[in-house]
């Protein structure tokens, strides 16, 4: 299992996923003026964040390569439903 996780993590199609600290989390929510539930969602068991030990309520920052903008940042709230 452990081996499989790392395989997914190194896949070229998987963008970088980072778990935000509480402080960063506050900043993101405040910046967009939203509540946690208004964020796009990611399931807590998602393979991409398996190693981040994310719990519902956390926010994941995704750094993607974009065909239109070069690099973009996306946020997802961790959920278990």
């Amino acid at each position, binding site marked *: 299992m452990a081996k499989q996780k790392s395989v997914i993590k190194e896949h070229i199609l998987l963008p970088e996923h980072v778990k935000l600290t509480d402080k960063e989390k506050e900043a993101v929510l405040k910046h*967009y*003026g939203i509540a946690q539930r*208004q*964020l*796009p969602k990611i399931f807590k068991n998602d393979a991409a964040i398996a190693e981040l030990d994310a719990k519902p309520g956390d926010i994941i920052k995704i750094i*993607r390569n974009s065909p*239109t*903008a070069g690099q*973009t*940042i996306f946020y997802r709230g961790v959920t278990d439903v």
Partner: protein
Amino acid sequence: MADEEQPKETPEEVQEAPVVAAQQTKQEDAQEKKEKSDIYVGLPVISKKVKAIEFSILSPKLIKKMAVCKVVTPELYDKEGYPVDGGLMDTRMGVIDPGLVCRTDGRKLKDCPGYFGYIELARPVVHIKFAGLILSIIKASCSECGRVLIPANKFDAAKKKLDQVESESGLAARRKAIKDIIASMKTVSKCPHCKAKQPNLTLEKPTTYFEDEKRISPIELRARLEKIPDEDIELFGLSPRHFRPEWAILTVLPIPPVTMRPSITLESGERSEDDLTHKLGDIVRINQRLFENINAGAPEIIIEDLWDLLQYHITTYFDNAVPQLPPARHRSGQPLKTLTERIKSKDGRIRHNLAGKRTNFSARTVVSPDPMLALNEVGVPKVIAMKLTVPERVNTWNIEYLKGFVKNGPAAYPGSNYIVRPDGRKKRITDETKEASLEELQPGYIVERHLMDGDVAIFNRQPSLHRMSMMCHRVRVMPGMTLRLNPAVCHPYNADFDGDEMNLHIPQTEEARAEAEILMEVQTQLISPRYGLSVIGCVQDAISGNYILTRNLEMPRNDALDILYTIGVTDFSRLPKKERVSGKEVFSVLLPDDFSFVGESKARDENRSREVIIREGKLIKGIMDRANLGEGSGLLLRNIHQKYGKDFTLDLLGKLFRLGIEVLFRHGFTVGIADTDLPEDAAAEVRKTLDEARQKVNLFIDEYKNNKLDTFPGKTLEETLELRILETLNNARNETGAIVAEYANPHSFTKIMADSGARGNLLNLAQMAACVGQQAMRGKRIEKGYKGRTLSCFRKGDLMPAAHGFIKNGFKGGLEPWEFFFGSVTGRDSLMDTALRTPKSGYLYRRLANAMQDLKVEYDSTVRDSGGTIIQFSYGEDGIDVSRSEKGMLNVKRIIQAAL
């Protein structure tokens, strides 16, 4: 302001109103006070989140509580024609006659919403819509004690299991599980609670129940249902608070308000009642007779007959299409439209009234082209212009002007059809009333005058897939029977003139007109939000014309002036003052004199260069063709739009279009078979190419037969051969295409169309002149047909080009029979493919559009849905509004240059 006062007045007036209504007004009043400071003065703003919607059936108690009167007589009106008290048209249930006042709320026609009444049924009656449910509930419960036929120790487990099913796989699964439980109890013959033997209950459709061959009455049924305890009802998926099963057997019947079943007065002055009123009349009549017979102690048979009749009437009142019953009919024999029919199917409330909205002040006919219209104009037939109207309010300054329309009346153009008095009453203008109306007209009145040139209209073609499918045009009233549009705006509407129809809507208020002008006018839609280039450009002849003009045309200055004047140019100072002018100089007249541009054309000039240079408003070098004038291509139009604005661009587009057409008109333009003629040596070259290809294929086949062919990796020998042959033949066809392109007369109009991008391409020309080429199905040569061969005129196993769909002749030379057949095979295949794919992709797009319809870009450039949930953190990941970009990108270089 008037709205603000109303709620304050009503409480006094509604003193006698039913409890529910009074509470509502009080609430609204409170709301009103709270919202006073709000900007929406006068309108009670209700901003509450809907938490849940509960559905329930009416209990007899509730029916009585919400009723304002009891209906006791089938009579409708008395001798004077006033509604009878206690009749079906009782004025306590609302009024439908002008002049009468509702006795419940004191309001008049149109203000009174109407109130429910009720009738007390002499005997209970089964509600047809619940007949099936009643059967399964009674079957699943004990006839003696009313408990569900599940042993007490298993009851909780069953309930728990249902909850578990719901949490695992949803409500639908729970409903299915309930059905299974009920079905499983059919076989239980002894009650597990009181050990009573269970009789066999059956439903004789529609509403008669039998228990062991003996009929049981609704009274008995109701008694059984009453016995079932609340806890057990929950097992059936019903909430006892909202649905006690005995309520499904009617003891009182609500009478809907008069306002939802208004009678109509015929021309003869006779009254014709609504279908529902008719049906309710039947119910009340039979019900009264039943009462009388019961009280008089009539024989049981008579009472039962009447009871059945009452059941029939109430059943057809709810649903007049019950399979086992003859539908209740009018005297004319046409079936009554009762409650279910009102809601159901295409002409029902849902699909007809709620989902199917219709508009007034709209027109629809066939469209046809008129390049002399501006792009933002629409030609409207006079007959339509005299039906569609624009309301204009009379004031002291325009009264004489508006009187002119009234004077003309509805039959002369430009006239008017109606005048509206300040109190909102509409008056039709006819030849008789014309004088009186003219006399009456004064400031404050509204004249609905005929549509005139310059009026604002919204033009639309279905399917309305993007915002350019509905644009605002200016009206041009013209003779004829079709709506006219400039062919250049066909592209955004995706219209052509093979019989297409389009719709026209006339906005009726200043606000609507302003909104249409600012947001929807054609010039505001020039740059596509999909790809950031102009969606409107030259097409077809306009491109050919500009190509011919700018390639190497010369003409006397007078001819040039003539052309320019025809297309709408009046300032000729930019045309060089010399005897003969070049086409490029004529074209340059249209360009602004400080415009510079460098780009590429599609076609090559004599020196095989594709460069296009415009300097200081002069076309110095290059050919204008589709690459620069066409829709969705090239930055020429985009840059002009950027620099000179939408109105200039729109005007320029119209002129460019007309210029192309006008040039063709004077130059002459035609196509003929001779366009595809090849010089003798070119034809020989084509023959040689095809011959060589055939020999090469022969060689491959020989190698294959002698097993000398090198196989491609991962392919079988046969596959390799096929690939080789296909490649050879395709190359041969391409070579013939190149030969045709080289030798084709560059002055032939077919070639001009292909070069300029107006229509067709070189491949089409080559197919006509030289060789149609290989017909392929699914990327392979044709293999279908007989065993081992495609057609019976070939030998089995023949691998030669001709036997597998290679058409070596051109269309002009004529096809061999088998070649024609192969052409038909692929033709049919692609026809089926498009016919099947179009609706599928259309539906796919529709679903996508519906799913995304209320997403919106907020001021912080995030994309959010109506609930505020973020979909994208920056629109399109780069935050660029494509309709303000150049081909989806920002031209940073130019922006910096402009800033310096």
